[in-house]
């Protein structure tokens, strides 16, 4: 059966390998340039004691290549559409499942080997792209410390492997249910994009309870370090309540503190004389500023949790596929 899978999909495998090779060459060449650019910038800023503001002055790489690397966010979806969607749907559509299922092997074996290789290939390919992107991004990660940012988090580390497995499982299950290739591909794009957005935007920040730092006025300011993920920030009110403008469109805010929450006397200071703002707020009983965030040290925990979610979804979809294919008539 493995032989048949190879014979049927080897052209796709060659194409994927060639595309990966081209991408790898680009990434390695430019990645090395960026690494040396970053190292020399570090060396010169150390001399002039200006490394703390290096991130605002230095741009690594070219915008075009950064765009290309950012585009790898669609790789898992493409794998789901082109490898997952047709995997069983094409055979139902052309009737070749009837040829395969009347050779001396069971449907279970047929399905296991096909899905197994597709998932393995997707994990390997998605993983290889992600490894290249992660390596390529390491100077930028060190410089900008924005590893948690959507668009960075989503294309680095191990989550792309989870996405790729899920996308392929989604394509296969859609194909098994619909028995048509093109609709299965379309469903894959829609469902994958929807779930990725929902999980990325609404669920991800809740994987672990965020940490809150409260900086009382007049005390030494403590700030989170490294590539932390800022969840919210704002003002600690008279009763110790946290006042923040977590969403856009809720009015003017200074450092996350909604201007509307400030006493009217202090409000103009926020724009005219920020240095006097704090004493003004303190004199009205406000206690300090707060920052709620996910610490940088949780990066891999978050990667692991998100990967786990998508792997579990993939497992569920494969189970559905198995039930559908084994129970239903050819």
């Amino acid at each position, binding site marked *: *059966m493995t*032989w*048949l899978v190879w*014979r*049927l999909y080897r052209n796709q495998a060659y194409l994927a390998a060639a595309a990966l090779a081209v991408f790898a060459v680009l990434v390695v060449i430019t990645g090395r340039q960026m690494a040396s650019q970053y190292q020399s910038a570090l060396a010169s800023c150390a001399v002039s004691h200006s490394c703390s503001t290096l991130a605002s002055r230095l741009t690594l790489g070219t915008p075009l290549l950064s765009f290309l690397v950012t585009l790898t966010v669609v790789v898992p979806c493409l794998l789901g559409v082109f490898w997952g969607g047709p995997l069983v749907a094409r055979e139902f559509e*052309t*009737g*070749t*499942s*009837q*040829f*395969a*299922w*009347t*050779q*001396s*092997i*069971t*449907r*279970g074996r047929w399905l296991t080997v096909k899905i197994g290789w597709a998932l393995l290939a997707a994990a390997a390919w998605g993983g290889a792209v992600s490894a290249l992107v992660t390596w390529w991004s390491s100077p930028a990660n060190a410089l900008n410390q924005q590893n948690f940012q959507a668009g960075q988090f989503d294309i680095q580390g191990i989550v792309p492997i989870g996405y790729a497995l899920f996308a392929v499982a989604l394509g296969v299950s859609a194909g098994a249910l619909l028995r048509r290739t093109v609709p299965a591909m379309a469903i894959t794009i829609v469902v994958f994009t929807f779930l990725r957005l929902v999980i990325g935007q609404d669920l991800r920040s809740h994987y672990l309870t965020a940490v809150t730092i409260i900086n009382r006025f007049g005390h030494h300011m403590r700030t989170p370090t490294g590539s932390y993920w800022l969840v919210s920030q704002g003002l600690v009110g008279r009763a110790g309540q946290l006042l923040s403008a977590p969403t856009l469109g809720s009015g003017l805010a200074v450092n996350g503190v909604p201007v509307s929450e400030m006493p009217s006397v202090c409000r103009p200071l926020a724009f005219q004389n920020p240095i006097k703002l704090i004493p003004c707020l303190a004199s009205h009983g406000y206690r300090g500023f707060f920052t709620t965030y996910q610490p940088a040290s949780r990066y891999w925990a978050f990667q692991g949790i998100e990967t786990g979610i998508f792997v579990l979804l993939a497992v569920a979809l494969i189970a559905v596929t198995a039930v559908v294919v*084994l129970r239903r*008539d*050819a």
Partner: protein
Amino acid sequence: MTPAIETRGLTKRYRKVTALTDCTITVPEGRISALIGPNGAGKTTLLRLLGGLARPSGGEVAVLGGTPRQNPAFLAEIGFVAQEIPLYRRLTAEDHIAVGAHLNRRWDGTSVRQRLESLNIRLDQKVGTLSGGQRAQVALALTLAKRPRLLLLDEPVAALDPLARRQFLAHLAEAVAAGGLTVVLSSHLVADLERTCDHLILLAASRVQLCGDIDTLLAQHQVLVGPAKDITAIERDHTLVQAVRTARQQTLLIRRNGPVIDPAFEAADVGLEELVLGYMGQAAQPVPAHLTTVGEDQ
């Protein structure tokens, strides 16, 4: 000896339609059975049930003494060619031979090569670029390479021109003559299969109308031609399958229960096509079956 195929009350329902109703048939080993019926009669459904590609909704089915299922031991004994002759279009015949070698324990790739070479079908050409007839030949040769004990072919000759049709059926007859093989092949045309087959399963409107040895069935039936008179006596003694009446004359197809003694009627032997059309006509107008009337003179 166990029959190659035995079903009792076999029924297959899909969501809204019943594709096969209460099908009871027996096909002894070593026969070439013609599965005849109009389009939509349930031929494909029956073949798929026999090949284990579909599950019955009711009734029993035994193929080569066992239940058709997804089990390598069962599948090794079955050859199946679906109606649309599904092969991997981008693969060559040689590739398919290799596929068969990987997916079957018993496999005779040499026989496929010999067969296709004798038909001048190129082994290194993608099967998607072969003609429909050539593809059917490739599919049959591949199926025979499994050395199956039962071959299920769904409208195998539909795609073939008359010459290829004859070659294909001759090849099939050869394979059966070599022994150990039973064949069921479907068609909606009797003429295609008359030369080759020695057993008949007639399906119409999802039900079995006739099943048995062709010579026996022909011997059991008779055509009576006579004046347009009352036939109550004939109907009492025999089973009337179809009556075609004009103002002065009527032609009756009957299943005999003994000799016909009415001197007003002239008895003649029935041909396979006549027999099949008679039963199909009966199924098309089932109520009341014995009053089927064709002709404009009332």
